[in-house]
């Protein structure tokens, strides 16, 4: 494939693949930009670049992942996502059939999420300078009236809710990439969470924080919010849902599921008096069926996140500088 520098081949690619897959008036107009009407109130934008190896994995592929990831970032402001743009960096020689699969998957994900992909771009880099395909997506959404969700709003006493099992995505990717088998196959949890978020903010507008624990896992997300809000957190291991295969895989691999990536889970922080109600709302939604209250926000000027382990006793859930470095001396 030699598309890319604005020549004919590139136009052909856009037309053939994207236009057909994402089909909408904005793309059909073939302008270099998309115009859309804005509503009153607050809008949000989020952008995310997606790099994943392997590109196709149980539960999804880089295409739907790049849609879900950005929709989720928009949704974590409590917003309804409306539009997406997509930028592709393709490695020379990348099979067109694979690209078609990816684009079709993106389109299906966008359609299912009721979000239009309204602009896009493609560049091709020399062989060896990319890893098949990288996709950057940008999302635009609107925040409903009365919703103020932000990572700095966690307050002591607030409850911490988790929408479902953790570690599925990371383990799915790793087991495929390294050809590891842990009994039954673990599928990635990649999913668009805005539908779940919509019911949550509708039923419980007073949610303080929402975040999707992607890279770095639940541990990193909780530490980020703790830092941002200037609070500490005390969570319990017992209610945190982990699939048994994921748990076993993590044990074998020496990984802590708290630090393993997710692509279809969210953490919600809300005042204690609405926590049970929020939990019920989450559980009523298919993407929150395994939701649980996993702990609470505490006053702690060290911003520590600590966990009561399943055996009793407490251990820190620290943020990490990089990879988990061995430390047992």
């Amino acid at each position: 494939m030699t598309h890319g520098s604005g020549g004919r081949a590139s136009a052909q690619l856009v037309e053939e693949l994207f236009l057909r897959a994402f089909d909408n008036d904005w793309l059909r107009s073939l302008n270099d930009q998309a115009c859309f009407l804005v509503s009153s109130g607050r809008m949000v934008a989020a952008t995310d670049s997606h790099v994943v190896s392997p590109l196709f994995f149980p539960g999804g592929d880089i295409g739907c992942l790049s849609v879900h990831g950005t929709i989720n970032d928009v949704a974590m402001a409590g917003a309804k996502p409306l539009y997406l743009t997509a930028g592709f960096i393709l490695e020379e020689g990348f099979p067109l059939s694979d690209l078609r699969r990816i684009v079709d998957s993106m389109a299906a994900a966008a359609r299912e999420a009721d979000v239009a992909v309204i602009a896009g771009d493609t560049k091709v880099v020399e062989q060896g300078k990319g890893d098949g395909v990288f996709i950057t997506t940008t999302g635009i959404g609107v925040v409903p009236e009365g919703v103020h969700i932000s990572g700095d709003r966690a307050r002591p006493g607030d409850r911490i809710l988790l929408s479902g099992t953790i570690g599925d995505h990371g383990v799915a990717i790793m087991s495929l990439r390294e050809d590891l088998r842990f009994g039954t196959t673990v599928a990635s949890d990649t999913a668009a969470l805005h539908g779940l978020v919509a019911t949550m903010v509708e039923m419980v507008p007073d949610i303080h924080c929402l975040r999707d624990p992607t890279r770095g896992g639940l541990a990193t997300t909780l530490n980020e919010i703790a830092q941002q809000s200037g609070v500490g957190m005390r969570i319990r291991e017992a209610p945190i849902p982990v699939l048994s295969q994921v748990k076993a895989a993590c044990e074998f691999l020496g990984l802590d599921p708290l630090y393993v990536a997710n692509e279809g889970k969210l953490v919600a922080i809300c005042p204690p008096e609405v926590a049970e109600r929020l939990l019920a709302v989450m559980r009523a939604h298919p993407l929150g069926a395994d939701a649980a209250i996993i702990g609470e926000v505490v006053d702690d000027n060290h911003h520590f996140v600590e966990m009561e382990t399943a055996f009793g006793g407490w251990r820190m859930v620290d943020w990490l500088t990089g990879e988990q470095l061995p430390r047992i001396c």
Partner: protein
Amino acid sequence: MLPVGSPSVAEVVRYRLRVRGQVQGVGFRPFAYRLATELGLGGWVRNDGRGVDMEVQGPLPDLERLMRDLRLKAPPLARVEGIEVREMAPRPACPNFLIEQSRTGMVRTGVSPDAAVCDACLEELFDPADRRYRYPFINCTHCGPRYTIIGALPYDRPNTAMAGFGLCPECRREYGEPLDRRFHAEPVACPTCGPQLTLHDGEGLALAVPDVLAAALGLIRAGQVLAVKGLGGFHLVCDARQGEAVARLRAAKIRAEKPFAVMAANRASLAPWVRCDDQAALLLESTARPIVLLPREPGGDDQFPGVAPGLAWLGVMLPYTPLHYLLFHEAAGRPRGTAWLRQPQDLVLVCTSGNPRGEPLVTDNDEAFRRLHGLADAYVVHDRDILVRCDDSVLQSNRGAPVFIRRARGYAPAPIKLPARGPSVLALGGTLKNTICLTRGDEAFVSQHLGDLDNVAARTALEETVAHLLKVLDIRPERVAHDLHPDFHSSRFALAFAAAHGLPAVAVQHHHAHIAAVMAEHALRGSCLGLALDGVGLGSDGTPWGGELLRVEEGGFQRLGHLRPLALPGGDRAAREPWRMAASALHALGRGSEIIHRFPHEGAEVVARMLERGINAPFTSSAGRLFDAAAGLLGVKDRANFEGQAAMLLEGLALCRGGTPPLGDGYVLGENGILDLLPLLDHLADLGDPDLGAAIFHATLAGGLVEWAVQACARTGIGRVALGGGCFLNGILRTAVREGLERMGIEVYEARRLPPNDGGLSLGQAWVAQAVLLQKE
């Protein structure tokens, strides 16, 4: 160091004396008073922030005699480091010697460690005619709590946990009487005016019982677990002979196999179940009263079922508070006098730290009722607060000189003399078995063992200890030192502290610090080679190190060599599962296909694959993991239940087997300074005799290490080697390496005053930071 121009013998002279060292709160003023009065000298003595200050007047020979006796006859807990003398103009009339009120001012004196109840107090404790008969808080200037009850200096009652207890007339008289053993004994107390014991049920409700001690012993005999408030924290106590009670304690503490320590009445009671030589007895009976690991007699597991399952050693301590003694006294039927203290007693107690799994000791009564809920069936508490948390110290004494495993009560915070004066440094240590170190002049104060910094409570304890030691030692640090590991809480705390106080921070490589700690305590200057044998510590190249041959100059080091790295499949998980290290060794030997047959675990296949593809399997030169690999290959232990278990079991087997020659071609010394012990592991993999294998492993490892270090000595021209790192807690290895090197005429230095493990890191860090700083100037 007499002043120049000393007057002639008959003349009356007057000296101002400044006594430095551990001289406060140890009965030093009454002692000085007694000496001066006996010699008929005039003058005065008082405490101030810097030590003991005194003036004496009289004939020169008498003054000289006084100064000699001040050093030689000092009370048991005193340690005189120096006496500065200044000649003064004699006063016209100076017939009396007086003890003057303490003067506050710059705090400069060390806080002394806690000390076990002394013989004189024991005599009173068991004398029915004494007013302190069976009083659990008896003490005097020669004994009792110090570090754990001092909130600030100078060491005066209002600055201690005794502040709230007003003295009764009799105690006041003793406290004010210079010739009394309790003159200015700050914690002095009696049944009328002092702290009281109370018994509480499992919910913390006070129980009305006629005699707390009798009731407590009754509960112990009935197989109950008691939380007993001690000096630096609570103990969980039960009858060591009742397997069921021990099992309940294990279940409650969620501690499946990690050994418990026991307390016995005296040395005479130990004979049937452990061997206690004179050196060990000296340690056991010292005022520090540490836990000492003693070799067990055969059949020990039957005597104390479940106390230290399968281990060749048992941790033993003797009573150190009057309360401990009173429990044994009660069990012995309240005999009169102290003769029973020399006779064998039947009662043996399990005494383990009263803390929820892995957290710091509980110190406060209400906190105990809350945090030990479910662990203890009842509580024996009192109303004297514990101001400083302090665990029992642990030493081993089975081979060679005693070695610290954990340094805390009875030793902390006594200073270690450094080779030179330097700027004040605060060093934060590692993350496991953490201690901190503060330096002042040429003294290094290493804190008590603070534990693993993996829970908020331990981190709070770290912070409190830093604040407390800065206060009582009156130190304003000029530098902060920490480990290289960016994710250690101690490193993060160090950086935050440095930023908050505008101080520079120095990162010290883990094994550099291990060796520097040994050099510091031996006051070594210049170059030294270091053999650091350890678990893992982050290396300067970002990889986990742990079997290092270093050349250490004061502020810097050079990595001369290291053990051949092995993969750590699963990172820290490999440290808990020796079979993984065995798998790693098999893989390195090209025998990876054996992994799934040898280890029919779920997961063996995954681990084999991880090794093949290098998934979460960083390479480490760790010596500790080499022990694990050997234990795994010999089938000694697949999964460790507590840190170091596999290595301890391996040492136990080798000890039983006795001396075995090293394997001739068990190691290869590479050109690049790499010591490769894979041939040894290859041999062990096919041996099928764990005892023999354990012995061969120790002998060959030691042989390889010695040859390695000897070559490095020859190459560098440095004739001395310091041994550091947790693996040197292994007595066989330590002895063999030391003897091997000494046979080649090499000077060997070991950790004596601090543990060789991470408990000593803070001293090494502080010393390196000081040296770096001094070099820059």
